[in-house]
């Protein structure tokens, strides 16, 4: 999958990133989020198992109660795991970004949707952050800092690392093509 997506011609070269075209996130973002979801599910399962063990030993419930409690726990876990696997695809479907001469526009949210516009002239400084799992799949999060109050930090996760760097370079002031 990694090879396939890097070989695709649509991967934007850094020069043309600011073309005002709305782009989806890197598809590998879904896989990454699902992986994180599995980890979260595993942690929760371990905790639940531990809790169940303590409950069975300490409270010594009857057969019916024990089966009921473990059944509920299992159902909750399955639901959580399913949600963790289903959600990233939804998130991916409704997320996109657009860069043009004016700045950066981010579209996010499945049920509660928001379009956020950061004018280029308002960018104070930028971060490109990569966690260990992101690095493994060549992804990065672009973080734009503005002088704003509630939107002082605008994050765009799920970018290909090169794309994040290209957008970063475009947004920073003082470049040769800087019209402001």
């Amino acid at each position: 999958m990694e090879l396939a997506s890097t070989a695709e011609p649509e991967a934007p070269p850094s020069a043309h990133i600011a073309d005002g075209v709305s782009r989806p996130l890197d598809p590998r973002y879904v896989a990454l989020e699902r992986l994180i979801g599995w980890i979260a599910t595993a942690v929760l399962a371990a905790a639940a198992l531990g809790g169940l063990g303590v409950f069975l030993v300490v409270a010594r419930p009857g057969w019916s109660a024990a089966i009921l409690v473990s059944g509920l726990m299992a159902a909750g876990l399955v639901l959580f795991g399913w949600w963790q696997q289903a959600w990233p695809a939804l998130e991916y479907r409704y997320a996109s970004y657009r860069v043009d001469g004016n700045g950066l526009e981010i579209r996010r949210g499945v049920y509660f949707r928001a379009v956020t516009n950061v004018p280029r002239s308002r960018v104070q400084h930028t971060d490109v952050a990569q966690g260990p799992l992101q690095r493994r799949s060549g992804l990065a999060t672009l973080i734009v800092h503005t002088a704003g109050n509630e939107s002082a930090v605008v994050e765009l996760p799920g970018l290909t690392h090169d794309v994040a760097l290209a957008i970063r370079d475009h947004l920073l002031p003082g470049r040769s093509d800087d019209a402001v």
Partner: protein
Amino acid sequence: MPSDRRLHPLSILFNIGRQFGAIALPLVLIVVGRGTDEDRWNVYALVFLVPYTAIAVGRYLSFRYRYEENDLVIRRGFFFRNQRHIPYSRIQNIDAVQNVVHRLAGVVDVRIQTGGGNEPEATLSVLTLADLDEMRRRVFGTRAATAADTGTPEAAPADTAEELLHLNARELVVYGLVENRGLIVVGAALGLAWELAPSKLVEQYMGDQASRGLVHSLARLVGAEAGPSWSALGMGVLALLVFLLMTRVFSVIWALIRLHGFRLTQQGDDLRAEYGLLTRVAATIPRRRIQTITIRESVWHRVCGRAAVRVATAGGKGEERERVVEQREWLAPILRRERVPELLDRLLPRVDLRAIEWKPVHPRAFRRALVRRLIGGVWIVLLALVLFGVKAAWGIPVIALWAAVRAHLYVQHLGWAITGDVVAFREGVFGRRTTVAPLVRIQVVELAESPFDRRTSMARVRVDTAGGGHGVDVPYLPRHEADALYATLAASASRTAFEW
């Protein structure tokens, strides 16, 4: 190619010191708690020191910075990597902190500040003095060239001060009555009593008399099968009235002292507010630093025909060492409503508040506002039913009607406008607020859609500025109008350069 640099190797020691400082006290407590066993102390110290040392060394090794043509670049993190670009042109301050140990070692703790956020954008701990010099040269060296062609606006001639507003005792009394800061006074008095009085005494009064007594009598009042006696109820109401009256009186006294001799003057491009009897305050508000202006009219303001005007300012460049990111300042704690446009005219000469054509929100916004308030009412009704039984059912139509009235007034008053380089927004039911934000001050524009918005094809447009407080956040817009407003605001923000 610009080369990567590291911090001074002593950073490791300083880092350990700082990390260790945070846990030093708990550590001591543990050791003391377990007795003064020599070996144990060593074990604990080791247990705590090892991870901290590892972290400090890791930080030192992973932290790099370099000077690029336009930006200062800082890379850090080992597992979670971060690469930060800070444009030289955005850096406002390079603060150097040197405590005794730093001075002995000949190093400094460097903090770089730009306009965003509350914390320093970068902390370089620690650098040598030579490194600091170089940083200043590189960052501010390029600055000199760019600052020269824009020209310094500070050269404005020093006009004589012109008085815009003066509050006499009568206005201050009105202010005290309207704002009701009495609870602050009561709270402060209680706090003082708590501090000064012997703790036993306070405990006796507060703990026994007040809390237990109050809770008990309340419980008796509510839970009594025979119902509360009328005399007790009357006493309670009377006590409440006296308390409310007293807080208003306190509030007036507080206002007379705190805002004594309030004067707002304009001198050139600066506004200056002076007030205070005991603590004399003289606040200078440069006009170019005003982010938003908010006019507040509470119910009592409207009864008295008054309003309050506040501005949110931001930033601080050059001479000021202390940076204040967000600050709300009084322009007029209280003034007659008809004088508001006149004052606003001083700040934004191209905006006439009286001539603004407020645009309404979606025609069906009332239904949404009503549902929202009804949901709030459901809880009250449920609580009443639980407490008082079926008798409380008569409250349902009252609460529904009340919700409808409030929703109607809210939607009626809701409005927005773009006029003369500003975006304006007003809202409120009985108390009202109007906020005006110059388009130049817009930082981020957001269009938000909840599932309820989508069902009724509405949306919300939010504007973020560097100032805090009441902002422009317009709900219940028709979808196409929201799109247009969003596009207009985003475009006009990107066309202008933001200046502090």
